[in-house]
């Protein structure tokens, strides 16, 4: 089980959280002009990296707020936790 540090509440057990998958997927604003392939790409395609990964978590059994975590998907070690709106270190930095 992971120990997750909610940026609002502090370290809590993983069972208090709901994982929201890959972070940084922005809903397109010009959907009417997009091809089916571009739309499929937004809805279904994921990077699924082996290594450094930006992901969303929601502290459903605590403050109920969403935040971004940076985790290594091989070791499951967290690099950092970031509130919504805070700058998140990009991949490769």
């Amino acid at each position, binding site marked *: 089980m*992971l120990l997750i540090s909610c940026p609002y509440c502090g370290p809590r057990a993983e069972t208090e959280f709901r994982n929201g998958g*890959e972070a940084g997927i922005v809903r397109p604003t010009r959907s009417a002009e997009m091809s089916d392939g571009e739309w499929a790409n937004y*809805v279904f*395609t994921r990077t*699924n990296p*082996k290594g450094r990964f930006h992901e969303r978590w929601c502290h459903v059994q605590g403050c109920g707020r969403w935040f971004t975590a940076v985790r290594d*998907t091989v070791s499951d070690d967290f690099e950092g936790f970031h509130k919504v709106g805070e700058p998140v270190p990009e991949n490769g930095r």
Partner: protein
Amino acid sequence: MTRFSIFSLAKNAMTGHSKWPEYWRSPEPKPAYDVVIIGGGGHGLATAYYLAKVHKITNVAVIERGWLGGGNTGRNTTICRSNYLYDESAALYDHAMKLWEGLSTELNYNVMFSQRGVMMLAHNIHDMQVTRRTIHANRLNGVDNELLTPEQAKEFCPPLNISKDIRYPVMGAALQRRGGTARHDAVAWGYARGADSMGVDIIQNCEVTGIRVEQGRAVGVETSRGFIKAGRIGCVAAGHSSVVASMAGIQLPLESFPLQALVSEPVKPAFPCVVMSNTIHAYISQSDKGELVIGAGTDQFISYSQRGGMQIIEHTLEAILELFPMFSRMRMLRSWGGIVDVTPDRSPIIGKTPVENFFINCGWGTGGFKATPGSGHVFAHTLATGEPHPINAPFGLERFVNGRLIDEAAAAAVAH
């Protein structure tokens, strides 16, 4: 290849079983092959076998990063069944079931396929409605499946607790009598032995580090043992499919999760069939060695760590013990995780990619073992002809663009 028979057994008994030949060679990779298959698990080896057997293409290499069957082939709970809801899935999984039924004879290798029956429990009104619907759909597709009352379920599986006092009482069950189990690593070994005897090169401890693509066409693989030219490439890398496909510049609709299983100490035969409960998440059978084989769920987050959270195992064992209180003193021997590549609709992806000559067979998620023979058979056809077999045609990557999903996720509401 020495064929196994009563005579070869007797002959080798005379020499103390010291003269049995190796099952397969360990050749040096050749500079070029007609087909290179990435991944030496059950699906990859079955693909190589049927390429050689059905399509007479024997200039084939199977490249495996570790050892044969060391990935998900050796990590699953060995369950075989074909009672899927949708027509496309029923066709695919029942194709596999028919091949399972003759597989030991076909391979001259005992894969210990045992049609002991797979019983799927229903615990609420919704379960009962879904179960009835699935049974009707199965029957229309020629797949056996029957509805049992709780009493009939207990008669079929005496350890089952059908008390009305448990938190999620058993309200009924679906039974596929043709379903059962097979010895998972024997499946890999049997296919490897068969493929090798027809000339397929099985190259273990060889990691693919890159896919060479020239003008939109895959021409070979970079490996830890040098470049290997390939006419066609089949990627059968299970949990690492995203990693391999990204080497060819392709992003897939896949997410990889750790899925756990565990086994108990071996005991005398006590459990006659396979029981699955999707609703309270319990999967259990007893191996021929005597261990209870228990399947747990996936973690909620993407990971390649091959281990999962203890709370996932705890959740599964709570369900197992409510259904089978007699196992409360059993000691668990080992638990492990495998990395499963899950698609948005929980159905596999078998077919072409935007890169010419680069084909994928992935996305089997939490339930690929049961499909091993069928998956290999249709993927061999795809690699040999360049076009999908009618059975895997609906399972192409394009379904995520045109919207023709095969949504077994919604059909079962959980993993398979």
